[in-house]
């Protein structure tokens, strides 16, 4: 067992250790805490990128393989496992990239506005990484609760009655969701007698017809718990309010939280109810497809209707979730690849936009702003921070730079060329209209496909209209000489995320090849299952002595 295999657990241990370590120190040692947190997150990014190369080409064999880490050195399905494959590695990198951006942004002012910001942030990362790596359902629940508990703290960060109100709803909904999660998990355990995902995939085709109903009920209840997280209509009404009430860096990392639900649905629907699942094959796919399409429509209407930019971004989260859910529901290899690309691109954009909103809205006069929904929360924080020393250099042409970023975000939201949003939508549309591959005659296009294509394009149009309107109001409407004071440190993360999106479109071929490989292995989980089930335990100390 090489060091590479042990690296699999690093994305969980590193944030856990950092978060716990930071608890020891007093809040007044803020600079030190910030530094430790930043270094740990940077290290996490390094680990995650290393893991991507492992997932793409395993070090020993030179070919792609799933790395299985036996936590208690008991073989699956008896022990609990961590599994690293292309999809989980991709999610790890995405998480750490967002974390770097959000954390850097928060260092300018936000991390001062409440206690234990860095600890909660690290615990959130730990929970997210654990959820992406775990190979069994119950640990998924545990990691879910870890990042949810951290997110309860973070959504209240900065306080204010608006946040407490939104946070209260957020907590209640997620606690109820956790109960559904447990019911679903235990029903599945009751029927199959296992919680290991790979073992479940083996046993589900063998479930007897009498028990199948119970199994599917369990899977459906479990699915609802994830759909609440992903924000599918009608389970996602809480999402825009909660996300727009959260502090900017928190909202940015929350963009990842809604993708956890998507990740699990993608993984479980293809692993447990893929083509090999016997009578249950394709279970739940119509629900995801139609539910996803309604979510796109609802989100697009929300985008058009929102007057404050925070709500616009929150509604766009719904559009993004809906698109991904519908794509999962269609269960088509090349569509899944396109959807993965879309997920990366839209998550980066949403995070960048949440950060940007806060910078832009500083320019607006709180008293003049009739829609001062978000301002109410920001107002008192700003008064307090003005007196502090500036850490970086204030940019003179602030509004120009913010405007360029805003335009970039608008292009990404709408899916217009040349940025990665276009490539993502193009890849999905190509896959939808050519399900058998380009050039192959597929004998007509179904109505569902047309509706999905239309929704994809119309949601982009809605985003464009809303962004243009918001942009004109913010940048071209006379602002009584108040230029927001933006530090380089706050602007840099936004630019970093947007430049990554540019990078995604420049390196589109390479990224798409990775997504294709990911989608293929997701749709053919046999190697995942055999890798997990055949992972052998290490010899214990005793047997080493015997040699």
């Amino acid at each position, binding site marked *: 067992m090489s060091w590479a295999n042990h690296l699999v657990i690093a994305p969980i241990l590193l944030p856990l250790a950092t978060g716990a370590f930071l608890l020891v120190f007093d809040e007044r040692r803020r600079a030190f805490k910030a530094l430790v947190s930043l270094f740990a997150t940077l290290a996490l990014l390094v680990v995650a990128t290393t893991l991507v190369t492992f997932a793409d080409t395993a070090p020993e064999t030179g070919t792609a393989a799933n790395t299985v880490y036996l936590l208690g050195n008991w073989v699956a399905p008896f022990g609990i496992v961590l599994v690293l494959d292309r999809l989980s590695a991709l999610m790890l990198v995405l998480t750490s990239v967002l974390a770097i951006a959000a954390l850097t942004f928060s260092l300018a002012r936000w991390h001062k506005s409440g206690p234990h910001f860095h600890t909660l942030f690290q615990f959130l990362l730990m929970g997210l990484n654990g959820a992406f790596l775990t190979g069994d359902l119950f640990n998924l629940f545990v990691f879910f609760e870890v990042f949810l*508990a951290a997110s309860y703290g973070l959504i*209240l960060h900065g306080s204010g009655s608006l946040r*407490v109100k939104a946070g*209260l709803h957020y*907590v*209640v909904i997620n606690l109820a969701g956790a109960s559904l999660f447990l019911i679903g998990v235990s029903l599945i355990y*009751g029927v199959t007698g296992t919680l290991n995902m790979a073992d479940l995939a083996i046993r589900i085709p063998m479930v007897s017809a009498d028990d199948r109903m119970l199994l599917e009920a369990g899977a459906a209840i479990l699915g609802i718990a994830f759909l609440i997280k992903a924000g599918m209509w009608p389970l996602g009404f809480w999402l825009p309010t909660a996300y727009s009430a959260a502090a900017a860096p928190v909202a940015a990392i929350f963009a990842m939280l809604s993708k956890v639900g998507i990740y699990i649905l993608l993984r479980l629907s293809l692993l447990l109810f893929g083509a090999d699942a016997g009578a249950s094959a394709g279970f739940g796919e119509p629900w995801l497809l139609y539910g996803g399409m309604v979510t796109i429509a609802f989100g697009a209407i929300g985008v058009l209707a929102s007057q404050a930019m925070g709500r616009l971004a929150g509604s766009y989260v719904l559009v993004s979730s809906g698109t991904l859910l519908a794509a999962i529901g269609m269960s088509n290899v090349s569509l899944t690849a396109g959807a993965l690309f879309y997920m990366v691109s839209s998550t980066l954009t949403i995070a960048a936009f949440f950060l940007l909103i806060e910078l832009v809205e500083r320019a607006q006069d709180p008293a003049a702003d009739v829609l001062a929904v978000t301002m109410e929360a920001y107002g008192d924080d700003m008064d307090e921070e003005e007196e502090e020393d500036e850490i970086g250099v204030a940019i003179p042409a602030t509004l120009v730079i913010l405007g360029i970023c805003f335009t970039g975000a608008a292009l990404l939201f709408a899916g217009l060329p040349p940025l990665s949003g276009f490539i993502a939508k193009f890849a999905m549309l190509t896959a939808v209209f050519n399900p058998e591959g380009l050039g192959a005659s597929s004998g007509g296009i179904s109505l569902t496909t047309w509706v999905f294509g239309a929704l994809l394009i119309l949601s982009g149009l809605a985003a464009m209209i809303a962004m243009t309107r918001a942009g004109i109001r913010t940048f071209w409407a006379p602002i009584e000489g108040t230029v927001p004071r933006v530090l380089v440190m706050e602007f840099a993360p936004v630019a970093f995320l947007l430049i990554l999106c540019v990078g995604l479109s420049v390196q589109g071929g390479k990224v798409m090849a990775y997504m294709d490989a990911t989608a293929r292995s997701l749709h053919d989980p046999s190697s995942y299952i055999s890798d997990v089930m055949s992972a052998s335990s290490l010899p214990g100390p005793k047997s080493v002595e015997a040699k």
Partner: protein
Amino acid sequence: MELILAIGIGVFVGSGVWLLLRPRTYQVIIGLALIAYGVNLFIFSMGRLQINAAPVLASGSVNPADYTDPIPQALVLTAIVIGFATTALFLVLLLVSRGLTGSDHVDGREPN
């Protein structure tokens, strides 16, 4: 035994859901706690009901029918701990909300 347990779970979850839909935060937290009890019992029942049976296997050849399934018991323990922690956290939030808004309504203001 099965009937009693099933009724118990039903009563817990039923009253929990009813309370969860009430407008006062205190009712909501009690509702969540009751649902958590119901869910914990439900997890427990998924290991099949056995009376007077030890959860841990002895070494050597054993008859599995003599033992109860230990996994749901472990799961229930974890679920209880997590549920307790999150309920405590919610309790704090409830008090903060009461203090900030002056109302114990879940929307932070009294309906007109």
